[in-house]
């Protein structure tokens, strides 16, 4: 079954079966890679935060650059009001980025290639942003669905469209990440399969593609984490600074 490009997305139990009531919460390979990503983030950033030299070394520079990068991203898109949510967005960006990057290691598992994982993250963001919006603006948050400067005749239609687009945010956010990761990994698997099936004679072309795709996928892994985080910032911006 190893030739099946979807095989890599299989989730299987590692260790014993754990059940709470009827719910199966066994430790799986997906859980393993979540734990690995989390640990990697914590180790890297703990090492980076430990040293307090005026002139940073490589690992300190890495963590400080990441900090400034995310900080700038938030202040650019959501303004100064979003400062309290910095830690969440930073964790989110790093988690998605590390899960994507660990997925690039051959024979590893890509946590973010599962719709349920990305959907839970996106749904959490969606619910959180909605709660923040209603807490900040009360019922005035509903003005988000009524853009200013729209003719009254069109208004009912626009409001419906706005509501649908608002409600589809978690779906678009989660599917974007999941589909990108799944498609990329499937492609790589497919081209890897070509290399094997075409053998020494014809395998060089798909091998080249495979190499190029690996580079592309690393870019996509970073880009999708960035997109995920920046869309979260944009949604947060809607909730914090009501423009409509």
């Amino acid at each position, binding site marked *: 079954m190893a030739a099946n490009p979807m095989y890599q997305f299989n989730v299987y139990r590692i260790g014993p079966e754990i059940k709470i009531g009827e719910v199966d919460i066994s430790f799986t390979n997906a859980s393993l890679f*979540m734990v690995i990503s989390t640990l990697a*983030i914590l180790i890297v950033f703990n090492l980076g935060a430990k040293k*307090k030299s005026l002139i940073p070394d490589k690992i300190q520079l890495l963590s400080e650059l990441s900090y400034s990068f995310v900080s700038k991203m938030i202040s650019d898109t959501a303004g100064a009001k979003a400062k309290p949510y910095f830690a969440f967005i930073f964790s989110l960006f790093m988690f998605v980025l590390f899960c994507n990057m660990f997925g690039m290691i051959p024979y590893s598992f890509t946590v973010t290639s599962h719709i349920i994982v990305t959907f839970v993250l996106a749904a959490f963001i969606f619910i959180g942003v909605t709660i923040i919006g209603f807490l900040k603006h009360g019922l005035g948050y509903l003005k988000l669905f009524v853009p200013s400067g729209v003719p009254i005749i069109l208004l009912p239609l626009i409001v419906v469209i706005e509501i649908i687009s608002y409600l589809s945010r978690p779906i678009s956010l989660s599917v974007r990440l999941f589909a990108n990761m799944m498609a990329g990994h499937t*492609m790589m698997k497919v081209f890897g399969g070509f290399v094997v099936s075409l053998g020494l004679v014809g395998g060089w072309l798909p091998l080249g593609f495979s190499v190029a795709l690996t580079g592309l996928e690393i870019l996509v892994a970073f880009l999708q984490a960035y997109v995920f985080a920046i869309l979260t910032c944009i949604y947060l911006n809607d909730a914090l600074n009501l423009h409509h």
Partner: protein
Amino acid sequence: MKKIIIYLYALFSFNCIAKSAETGGMPQLNPEFWFSQIFWLTITFGILFIILSKFILPKIRNNLETRKSQIMENIEIADNQKMKSENNLKEYDKIISDAKDTAKKTFNLAKEKIQLDLGKEREKIESELNSEIHDAENDIKDLKKSSPEKISLIAVDTAAEIIQKLIGVEVNKSNVTAIVNEQVKLMKGK
């Protein structure tokens, strides 16, 4: 090229679908481990968020802020030192110019004093000389005045003595004096 890729991909995908049909399509849509994934995602992401927000991110922020403040401090110190050195330079210049001025003044003062002293001394010496000259002139005048009388007195005395010696007679001095005076008048009359 794209067409070839799409064609190959479609070909392979058909194969895949045929194969994955056996295992039940996309594993992502198999809800068997959904709760497990949600559970572990919550735990790992929760731990990550808590540790990052409570322990690691504040440290990094502190590091960045201390660096920033230290750089600002250093710039400030450098500015202060620059200003200080500029002031020092000004002071130094001032001291030098002051010293030049005072040197000039002292020089002038000394010159004046010397000239003054010189003048005083000269005056003193001149006045002394004048007075001496005056005295000498007076003496000469006195002498000039007194000399004829003395001469006549001496003449009288000597005349009297000569007469005594010659003839051994004491002559009346008033007679001699009268004769001498006559003779002097005669000589003066000449």
